[in-house]
Each structure stands twice: as C-alpha cells, then as structure tokens.
C-alpha cells in the first residue's frame, strides 16, 4: 500500500478533477458572459435610448460636505444597505455591482475584459465620453476641441483644475504619456486599432494637446469616447504597461471614485472622489463583488446583496415578478448572426446564402429566444448607430418557399428528402461555444430549420477558447456569433473588408468602407453606409438574425440611472442615488 499510493493518487486526482470539470459545465454561462467581455472589450457600445441627464443639476449638488466624513458615511451605511439616507448632502450608501472575474485597473491593455471595463469607468476619465443618451461624444477631461480643415489634426483644450486621485494636477503631459503608451509597439494596447490613422500626440501647452493623424478619420471622436482612458504619467512612468504590478495595486485616475481595497476573487471597493470635477458622487461607495456564477448573481439580487445583474434572455421570466427587482432592456450596438465561411463551396453561392436567410423564422426567434425585445437584423449596422442606420430597409421575410426556389436555382435538388448537388449532400456543422443558453437556442433553431430544407446539419460544441481560436482561423462552416462594436459603422471594417475570417470579398464593400472612413460630412457618410448595408444585405455573407436587447435587472432602491447600455451607463454612476426602501 505504502509504495503504491503514488500511483493510486495520480489516478485518483485527475479522474475526480475531470468529474468536477464536467459538472462545472453549468458555470459556462458565466464563462460565456466573460467571453462577451473579451469581445466587448474591444468593440462595445450602446443605445440611443431615452433619458438625458441635465448637467446643471450636478453643479448644483457640489455640496460643501467635508471630504473626510464621506468615506465614513459610506462605510456605515454599507453595513445596513437597506436603510440608506436619502439626504443628498454628502455621498452615502453603497451600490454593489457583480463581476464574473477579477478586474484589473489597466485600461490601456485591458486585462480582464468586461469586468475591467465596468470597473475602469468609475476610476478613470477620458478626453471625451458618450453623452448620457449613450451616443454623441461630450466633454470629459477635454472641454473643447478643434478639428483642422484637412481633418488630420485634433486639438483638445483640457479641463482646468482636474486632479488625479493622489492630488497631482492633470495636464497635457499625462495625455501625451497615455497616447504614447498606446502607440508603443511593445504595448498590448487594446483600443489602438480603433484609432486608425492616429500617429502621434503633441503637448502644445500644459492645458492643450494636439493629436496628429496621417489621414482624415471620421470616427476619431467616437473612438476616443470609447474606453480611451487617461493615465497619470508621474505614477506610471517606468512601469511596464503590459504588467504594471505596482500601479494595479493602487491605481490612480481622475474618475468619480477612488480605489480603496481589492481582495482577489472577492471584491473591489471604491469610495467617492470628493474632488471630482463634476461634483462629488451621490453614492459614497461602489463595491464590485466577484461572483463567477450567474445564478448566484441572480440569487444575490433577490436577497438584496447586489444591485445590478446583466441577464441572459432566458433568465428574464424567473425575475419578472420579484418585488424588489426592476428589469429593463437597453438597446446595444450588437447583432447576432450565423457567420458563414464564404470560402466553403457550400456557401460560395450568393443564392444559397440568401436562401438560408429566407428560411429562418426570425420573428419567432425574437419572440421566444429574446423574450420579445430586440428586432430582426437587416445587416451589421444596428439601430443604436443612430444616423448611420438605414431606417427604410426591410429584412428578408420568412419565406420557406422562396428559400426552396433559390436552392433549386442554385442547382440543389431534393432526392429522397436530402438536398443533393452533383451527388454531394448539403452537409455542414454549426460551431457553438458551450454554456451560453442564447447562442445554443439560435443554433438549435438554425439546425432544425435547415434540416427541414433537406440539409445535413450537425452542431459542433466547443469550449470557448477553442471556439474562438477556430473562428479566428476560419476553421468552420458556420457559427453562431454576435458582434458588439463602437457606435460607428467603420468599426465593422474588419468583419466585411480586408482579411475577415468569413473570407468574404466584395470590391463594392471595400470601396464604401474606404469612402466612409475619410468623409467628414455626416450626410455623405449616411448615404455611403446606407449603400454599404444594402450591398452586404444583398450578398448575405452572414445570415443576419437579430439586434438583441441588453437585459438588466436592477434593485428597486437604485435610482437615476440612464436606460442605456450598462457600459455607458457606468460613466454616470456618480449621478445615481439610492432610495430608502
């Protein structure tokens, strides 16, 4: 026994670990949302929805509260979150936001995906940020900007009197430092690709910065408003931005909340920054609780221990009638689609791709999978892109007969219930990442739909990283995908132009992207992108399914948030309040 126990052990450990891992499948919902974060990290945005918050009110509430009392108040009411003082004088109370994984406050490289984005919004400031309607860039750390007539120089005037959390003044040096970090080829900067032809930043004077571009770039401001956060030169200088181990232990920003505490795998605590340029926040403490399991997040919301949960549509029904919870849906710059490998002979024929679109019952998908919110997609430009979304375009109707006709035109014949051409069956696999219930539903509906047409369709479920690796290498026939992008159509360029993983090629589309990128007139761009959407619509390089809503559940005590995508809503956390309930 004694001598054989190592063998026994080595056999016992892996097998029981496997067992644990297979049981862990249920957790993949959480993992998949994390995945959404990875995508969203780069390219997310949000809706053109309702509520605009009057900036005047914030100036009025610059209460003369003693800065030192604020954190204490926050901590005290954290102990009893249900008894929050509605007295708005000093920041008070705690709002608790769940994250699925450890966030890391390094907005340049953005390790930690969505979790980090949700944290960074409260810690750091940007030159410009989306307005409270979730759209147009508005002043944040820059108060105004001039664009040179040739569209190649952006000059920003910085907001005077802004202080870093450590008390240092915020200056043009910090701005240049941040952009230099992003441009450094040695840095794994996450958002640099969004800035296109941006080449350098110059300090004009301590309160003025000039950004130089090698070519005009229409989306520049929108992209600067998209998670490009400023970092303090004095603090960060000398650290490797790819692993700033000291900075992330005590990050310094200009945002409405300051770093207080981090316990790995447990929580991050932020406290009100009394010196915030737009007035002190109303809520004293923001706690990010790290809860990897979505079911636990929902249970905690019901128990009043967290305040916001982002939901999968399938979770909506169960929370609908919970008394202390409000569910709402925001629009987001996102579309769900069946990506097709256009270099696969099956999908090389445009008629076949159109047939696949006609065959799909998308109204039912919106109703049953998305629980009634969201709309049918016409193409990659989604309604929250506002001016760029062609309103008058109609989606492909649900028409099985038309689909069959198109397949016949393309040379496919039904033989004994099977779709055949030249002796070959119409056989393909739908690649799916395990764990996300919504994408699984889409895959199942697509499979059933296409089987009815006589195709031989299988579902190939893979773990997220493998799924991602294979989609990047174009190693698929078809996969269920989604794409959250910044709210400018140029963000879609790598999906349909250049070397996209779908292997889709269209000179018309390439030309339109090139024109839209440099044109500085919004009217011209609108016309260009309407043509672009139409060209992609006709080609159907992907089967466009839906523009999904972003479902969120809020605790009822939370007030004053804008009904926009959570990523943008968090720029305005400092305006939220808690009601006594």
């Amino acid at each position, binding site marked *: *026994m*004694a001598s054989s*126990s*190592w063998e026994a*052990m080595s056999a*016992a*450990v892996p097998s029981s*670990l496997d067992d644990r*891992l297979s*049981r*862990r499948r249920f*957790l993949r919902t*959480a993992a998949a949302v994390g995945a959404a974060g*990875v995508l969203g*990290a*780069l*390219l997310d945005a949000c809706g053109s929805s309702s509520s605009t918050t009057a900036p005047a009110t914030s100036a009025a509430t610059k209460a003369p509260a003693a800065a030192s009392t604020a954190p204490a108040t*926050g901590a005290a009411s*954290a*102990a009893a979150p249900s008894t929050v003082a509605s007295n708005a004088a000093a920041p008070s109370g*705690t709002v608790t936001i769940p994250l699925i*994984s*450890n966030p*890391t406050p*390094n907005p340049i490289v953005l*390790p*930690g*995906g969505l979790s980090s984005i949700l944290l960074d919004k409260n810690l750091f400031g940007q030159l410009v940020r989306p307005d409270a309607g979730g759209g147009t860039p508005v002043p944040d750390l820059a108060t105004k900007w001039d664009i040179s007539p040739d569209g190649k120089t952006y000059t920003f005037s910085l907001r005077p009197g802004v202080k870093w959390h450590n008390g240092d003044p915020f200056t043009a040096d910090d701005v240049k430092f941040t952009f230099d970090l992003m441009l450094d080829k040695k*840095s*794994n900067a996450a958002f640099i*690709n969004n800035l296109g032809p941006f080449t350098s930043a110059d300090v004009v004077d301590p309160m003025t910065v000039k950004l130089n571009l090698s070519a005009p770039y229409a989306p520049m401001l929108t992209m600067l408003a998209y998670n490009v956060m400023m970092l303090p030169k004095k603090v960060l200088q000398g650290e490797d931005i*790819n*692993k*700033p*181990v000291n900075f*992330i232990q005590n990050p310094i920003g200009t945002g409405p909340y300051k770093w207080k505490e981090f*316990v*790995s*795998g*447990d929580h991050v*605590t932020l406290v009100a920054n009394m010196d915030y340029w737009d007035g002190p926040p109303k809520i004293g*403490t923001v706690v990010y*609780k*790290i*809860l*990897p*399991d979505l*079911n*636990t997040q929902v*249970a*905690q919301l*019901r*128990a009043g*221990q967290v305040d916001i949960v982002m939901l999968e549509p399938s979770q909506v029904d169960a929370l609908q009638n919970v008394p202390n919870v409000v569910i709402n849906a925001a629009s987001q710059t996102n579309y769900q689609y069946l990506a097709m490998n256009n270099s696969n002979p099956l999908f090389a024929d445009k008629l076949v791709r159109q047939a696949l679109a006609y065959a799909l019952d998308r109204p039912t998908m919106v109703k049953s999978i998305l629980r009634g919110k969201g709309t049918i997609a016409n193409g990659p430009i989604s309604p929250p892109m506002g001016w760029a979304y062609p309103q008058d375009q109609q989606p492909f109707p649900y028409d099985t007969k038309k689909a069959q006709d198109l397949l016949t035109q393309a040379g496919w014949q039904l033989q004994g219930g099977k779709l055949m051409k030249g002796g070959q069956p119409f056989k393909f696999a739908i690649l799916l990442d395990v764990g996300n219930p919504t994408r699984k539903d889409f895959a199942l509906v697509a499979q059933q739909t296409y089987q009815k047409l006589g195709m031989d369709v299988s579902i190939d479920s893979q773990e997220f*990283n493998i799924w*991602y690796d294979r989609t*990047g290498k174009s190693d698929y026939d078809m996969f269920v995908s989604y*794409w959250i992008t910044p709210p400018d159509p140029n963000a879609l360029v790598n*999906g349909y132009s250049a070397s*996209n993983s779908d292997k889709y090629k269209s000179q018309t589309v390439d030309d339109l992207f090139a024109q839209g990128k440099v044109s500085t007139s919004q009217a011209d761009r609108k016309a260009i992108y309407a043509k672009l959407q139409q060209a992609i619509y006709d080609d159907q390089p992907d089967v466009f399914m839906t523009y999904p809503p972003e479902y969120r559940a809020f605790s009822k005590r939370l007030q004053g948030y804008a009904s926009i995508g959570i990523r943008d809503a968090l720029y305005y956390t400092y305006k939220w309040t808690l009601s006594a309930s």
Partner: protein
Amino acid sequence: MGRYIASRLIQAAVVLILVTVITFALIHLAPGGPSAVLTDARLPPELIARQRANLGLDKPVYVQYFKWAGGLVRGDFGISYTDQRTVLSEIRQRLPNTLILAGTAFLLALIVSIPVGIFTAQRARSVPDHIVSGISFIGLSTPVFWFGIVLIIVFSVQLHWLPASGMRTINEPNSLADLLKHLIMPALVLAMPTMAQFSRFVRASVLETLNQDYVRTARAKGLAARIVTYRHVLRNALMPVVTIIGLTLPVVVTGAAITESVFGWPGMGRLAVDAAFTRDYPVIMGVTVLVAAAVILINLLTDLLYMAIDPRVRLR
C-alpha cells in the same frame, strides 16, 4: 528512517519536475490559446501576432519552459496573463481561504462520518442502516452546484439568515462570527459528498474488522463491548481510512472550485479553473507546482503515519 525520508524527498523532486514538464507540454498542446491575446478574431492578424510576441508566446515551447522554470528557481512564479498580478501574490491571497473552507469541510466530514460509519456497521442491514445508506447515496449523487443554489435560495433569499456569498461582510471589521456565518453553507456543501463517501468507507472497514478472528477472541475473553469497539475494532478499522483521507485531502482542496464559484468564495480552486479556461499559463503552472508539491508531501506523511499506527508496516 532518515535515509528513507531522504530518498523519498529525492523521488519527490524528480516527480515534481516531471509534473511541470508534462503540464507545460499539455497546456501548450491543448487547442485554443490564452484569452489574454484572443481579444478579437476580427483584429488585424499583425496586431494579434504582436501581442503574442509581447507575452513571449512566439518562442518555441521548450524555450518558454526554461524561461518559466528559471524564474521558478529564483522564486518567481511569473505574472498572470489575464489579470497582470503576480502569480505568487494571487496564490498567497487565495490559498488560506481554500484551506479554511476545505479544512472545515474536511473536519465536518470526519466528525460526522466516523461515528455514523461505526453506528451503521454495528447495525448492518437494519432499518437505521438502510436509512443512513439512503441519505449517503443522496449526498453522493446530489450535484454540488444545485445543492448550493438551493441552500442560498432557502437560507439567504427566503429566510435572510445567512449571507449568499463571499467570505466576509465587505466594509465591516473582520470577526470570527462573521466568517463562520459565511462558512456554514459552502463548508456543508463541500463536505457533503466527502461525508457520504467516508461514512460508507468507515462502515465497510468496521464491518470487515468486526468479522476478524481477534475481535471474536476479544469478545470471547469477555471484554466489554465498548472496549472491543474502541480498542480493537476502531484502531484497526481506521487504518485504511487514514489512507483514504490522505488521498482525498488534495482532491477536496483542488475540487473546491465549484463550491467556491457558487458561493463566491475567493479560493484557489476557482483560481485554477478560471486559469484553465482562460489558458493563463503562468497561473496554471503556479497552481500545479503547488498542488503537486502538496500531494507529494501529504502522500509521504500518510505513509509515515501509516507506519506509526500499524506496527506491521515495516521498512524494507
């Protein structure tokens, strides 16, 4: 004895090196790469290539291994790809939490299962035995995540008795009572399958011992039933139990991952599983080295303990 331990330690070092080589090879063979560089497939390929190069992932695997092993020798476990914190600081924060949870669960399992095992063995095939067997099988076959969520819904959402997650109340001074309140549900959930398994094991072992000749002899001598049970039966019956404890301990520590996820417990099991999903190589390797070392050590201790309690086990 000293020479035996020395030779076992040398063996342990060799095993440890093999474990790191094999793990390193396996994680690089696994399909899919680190999430840290999988920002978006729709990014230009040159940008992804640059990110890989910046993490050193463009080098041959053996070069990466020696770089990692070189760091380890100097006590540098590397830096996590996904959250940029040093692996050592992550483990240092997480390990004690897992030990608290797993230790409590383990003690709970022992405290319950040994008496239950003895009790049922003495009344084998009686009604109480069947009832306990039934409960054990339910305990073994209930999925941990389901049981956890049920407990949360009952005791946190409905009754508001216990916190739904975490290890301490945030923004409150640490106290033992607070920790215990957070510990009850996850420890119970984690202990349940082990408890069920152990009580079955103890029952079988005691039952077997009860049929031994020396027990019959002891009874024939007219010894009191209690003395027979505790001095003769228990001491012998618990020997295989010590082995199974040694084997199970590392499994409980690493296997706490699900319980930790359900209850938001900031432990190391979760760290390991998250690292596996995100292909966070430095973290996977760090945890592997630590767990492998612990397993080897526990194994060695089990063997020594075995010698101590069973005079028949002698060194060759």
